[in-house]
């Protein structure tokens, strides 16, 4: 009889009645063959693997992270409440120690959703990992968390949400942004002034294969994690690096994903992208589940798997090595870099244009952060979209110092005209406030 090494929790929610539109990659059929493979392999019967039913997240769960415009209900469908709820359920059973680790095999995904949400971008409306993590932080005693995003696309939404958080290490490895949506995730994106080095990006050249991915994990990610010593490791487990994925250009495999998972040892994995629904997902998901449970996965292979055919070139190998050296240098110099930025007391500002490709919305954002050596810093966001909304959003982090908290409330209480809404996330009290201008 099969017996797992780890007790592994699984939420499987394929949302068989939800699609962005009928021919969209994010459609009803996406996890159909994965379900077939998981059921036929009898994975849910294995002693030590337990399936949980997702819960729904609450509006409050969402408002810990997001400023939804015009409101939470307008940017989320029932399916998003369940998908985020699936992640939340897995996080809960892991932290309640009902299981050793867990995998939320849910859709729709979330890692392109940023702090302010005017609509869907990159098939994502709300950030399901962030909603889960901030619920866990509000409920359990965890502080330092690492999120490792192994989706083929840069996890720009998660990066945005944790850009200023010194307690969350966000590492994204993805296909080079010069060759793929969303076009970001370069080595020099290292986090805001109060959290320099807590965002790390590992852009990988097209056609990276098993060797390259596993090199990046072993030689870059794991040493950084050893240094950071997180209380919790979350894996945004996108599966679109696969050699058969229709919308990307990488050469990863089910064997590779399983090995990556057993090296990374995430406490929680959450499915992100992956659109080779017949040739990759059934095998990759089985591989990841077995790896998390600690069961032999050596025979989990795609029918057309040929490691020689997908092997990466020497150029690709060299390129990844160079990237690795640069990333590690940034990581090692993070304290010095932070000292430099924190010397300049006051505020840092940035303005950005954000495009919501899925919903065709353009957002203009001006962000201001209080530079602070004590905490993550209060954040003020002035956001307007071409749908006509204009909001002022203020975020006070959970471990905010007194000065940052006061600054946050000053921004919130200021007399301001021209906004449709003024919103405040006060994470020190775990409350969301809204006032009319």
């Amino acid at each position, binding site marked *: 009889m099969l017996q797992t090494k780890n007790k592994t929790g699984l939420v499987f929610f394929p949302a068989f009645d939800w699609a962005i539109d009928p021919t969209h990659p994010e459609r009803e059929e996406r996890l159909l063959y994965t379900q077939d493979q998981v059921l*036929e392999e009898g994975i849910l019967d294995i002693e030590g693997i337990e399936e949980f039913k997702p819960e729904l997240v609450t509006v409050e769960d969402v408002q810990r992270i997001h400023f939804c415009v015009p409101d939470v209900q307008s940017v989320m*469908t029932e399916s998003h409440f369940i998908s985020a709820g699936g992640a939340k359920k897995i996080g809960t059973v892991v932290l309640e120690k009902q299981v050793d680790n867990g995998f939320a095999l849910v859709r729709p995904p979330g890692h392109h959703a940023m702090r302010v949400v005017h609509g869907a971008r990159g098939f994502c409306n709300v950030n399901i990992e962030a909603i889960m993590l901030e619920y866990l932080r509000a409920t359990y005693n965890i502080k330092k968390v690492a999120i490792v995003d192994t989706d083929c696309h840069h996890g720009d939404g998660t990066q945005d949400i944790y850009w200023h958080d010194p307690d969350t290490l966000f590492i994204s490895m993805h296909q080079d942004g010069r060759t793929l949506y969303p076009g970001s995730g370069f080595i020099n994106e290292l986090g805001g002034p109060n959290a320099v080095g807590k965002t790390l990006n590992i852009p990988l050249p097209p056609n990276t294969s098993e060797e390259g991915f596993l090199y990046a994990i072993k030689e870059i990610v794991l040493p950084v994690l050893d240094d950071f010593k997180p209380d919790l490791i979350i894996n945004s487990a996108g599966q679109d690096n696969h050699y058969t994925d*229709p919308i990307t250009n990488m050469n990863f495999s089910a064997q590779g994903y399983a090995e990556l998972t057993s090296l990374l040892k995430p406490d929680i994995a959450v499915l992100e992208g992956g659109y080779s629904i*017949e040739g990759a997902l059934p095998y990759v998901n089985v591989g990841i589940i077995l790896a998390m449970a600690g069961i032999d996965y050596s*025979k989990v292979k795609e029918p057309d798997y040929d490691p020689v055919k997908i092997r990466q070139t020497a150029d690709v190998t060299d390129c990844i090595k160079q990237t690795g050296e640069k990333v590690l240098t940034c990581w090692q110099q993070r304290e010095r870099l932070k000292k430099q930025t924190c010397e300049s007391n006051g505020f840092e500002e940035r303005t950005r244009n954000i495009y919501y490709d899925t919903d065709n919305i353009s957002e203009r954002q001006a962000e201001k952060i209080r530079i602070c050596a004590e905490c993550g810093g209060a954040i003020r966001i002035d956001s307007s979209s071409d749908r006509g909304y204009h909001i002022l959003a203020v975020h006070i982090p959970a471990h905010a110092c007194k000065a940052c908290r006061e600054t946050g409330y000053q921004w919130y209480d200021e007399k301001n005209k021209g906004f449709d809404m003024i919103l405040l996330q006060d994470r020190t009290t775990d409350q969301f406030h809204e006032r009319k201008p």
Partner: protein
Amino acid sequence: MIIGLDVGGTHTDVVLLDKKGLVKDVKVPTDPSDLFNTVLTGLEKITEDIHHREITRVVLSTTLTTNAIAQKKMTRVGMIVSGGPGIDPENYRTNGNYYTVSGSIDHRGREIQPVNPVEIQGVVERLMDAGIRHVGVVGKFSTRNPDHETTIGSILEDSFEKIFLGHQVSGNLNFPRRIATTFFKAAAYSAHKAFFESVKKSLDKKGFEIPIYILKADGGTISFEASIDYPGQTILSGPAASVMGATVFAPENEDVVVIDIGGTTTDIAVLINRVPVLEPLGIEISGYKTLIRALKTRSIGLGGDSAVKVNDGKLEIGPERLGPAMAFGGPSPTSTDALSVLGLIQNSDREKAVQGITPIAEAFGESVEKTASMIFDDSCREILNQVQDIVANINSKPVYTVHELMEGYQVKPEKILVLGGPAPYFAKRLDEMSDFRVDVVPAWHVANAIGAALARTTCEVSLFADTGKGLAVSPEEKFSNKVNRNYNKTEAVKDAGDLLNKKALQIGASAEDFEMEVVEHIQFNMVRGFSTTGKNIRVKVQVKPGIIHGYGSISIKQGK
């Protein structure tokens, strides 16, 4: 008139029913070493002074296959298993003569690697050398495409007596369960066949040429002739008999909990509008999970004869049974002795019961009566806890659509029906201790045999269509049809319904009892690139478990 017979662990209950109700019932002791004789004695006693022409049907619920498996008295069989990519099928080894071979089929039923006839021939020789006569053949995804199993089967045909193919045990996906189910089917085949052939012969000899039905674990029946090919389905029909017995008397449009309090165990099941809740895939036998359809029951080691003792200052009831209650000449105190002390059981030796409970009372420094109450209340509390648990378990079953998650049916029973030996005493106390309305099943002492007698014939059909491949298949029913691109869910449900009707009649259903239920019907557009290449349709239909036509409203007088 019809006869229902339920072989229990200690007693075998037999009833004779007409459309008005219970005509006669008898109890005979069960002889586990000679079930054939037990069954015949039961049938003889119930048919004394009855003319054989008056009897139209007999239904047997026996533990024969269950016992054969538990006592490992099964036929030695060979297993040939082809897995392909995925978990190594070596992990699912059922027996010594178990061979994994090459060849694989993928999730859409496409061949990935062909069968290697030379390799199979090698296995044939080794199985023949081992003296094997029966062989099971199981492939991964054979319910999507059975070609490999049939190919291997045809290579084996001339060398063995009987071949069992995995896709014929169930239409459901689950390779490890398909292996275990095929193994049990192959291993139980001979014992099952021999047993029922001798029962039939004996009845024929006495002039009872009547249709014999066997009760299955899902609370439905199957004709004796058809059961020969489905021996596994009759495993563990015991709980099904009792639950179907309660179903006869359950109210409509209500969720009801059924509690069967036996000697060694108490079994709990749930009815939704008089239909029992089934296990999603099948029961577990001897540590192997199977695809054998069965009622969802919770069995706890707490019955009338459960041993009562004090351990580390704590009261312990069950799970072991050391013999009958002291009040009935047993060796050590039991739950029934507590009832006897409380004066709830007539014809029992209360003095002996007091003698049994006394040391326990002394350990707690309480009176014998108070201790007896404590034992009784603890038992009731444990049963109620388990009731909550099974209801929660049913309601937490994962669902895979937004609609089901938001609107899915939640079981909220407010009524409990109790049957089994001490049913009346327990019903009263359970009612007092909970918010449930608790009633005793009329004729509680033989309701299990009544349930067997009245259960209708059930079966299930799965159909899988892939209009991209232009095929609709139901391998278990040997059905494969070409379909065009316009084939849809409605047509698939109709095709599955036709197959179900055919199958139900074949295995013994009468046309008036054919009530179809669509268990699953889901249709996906298959999109490759930006165009739809076909539809992927999955349909599962079943005959709703229930009571045969004409007997739905029988009235049974309380007691006898």
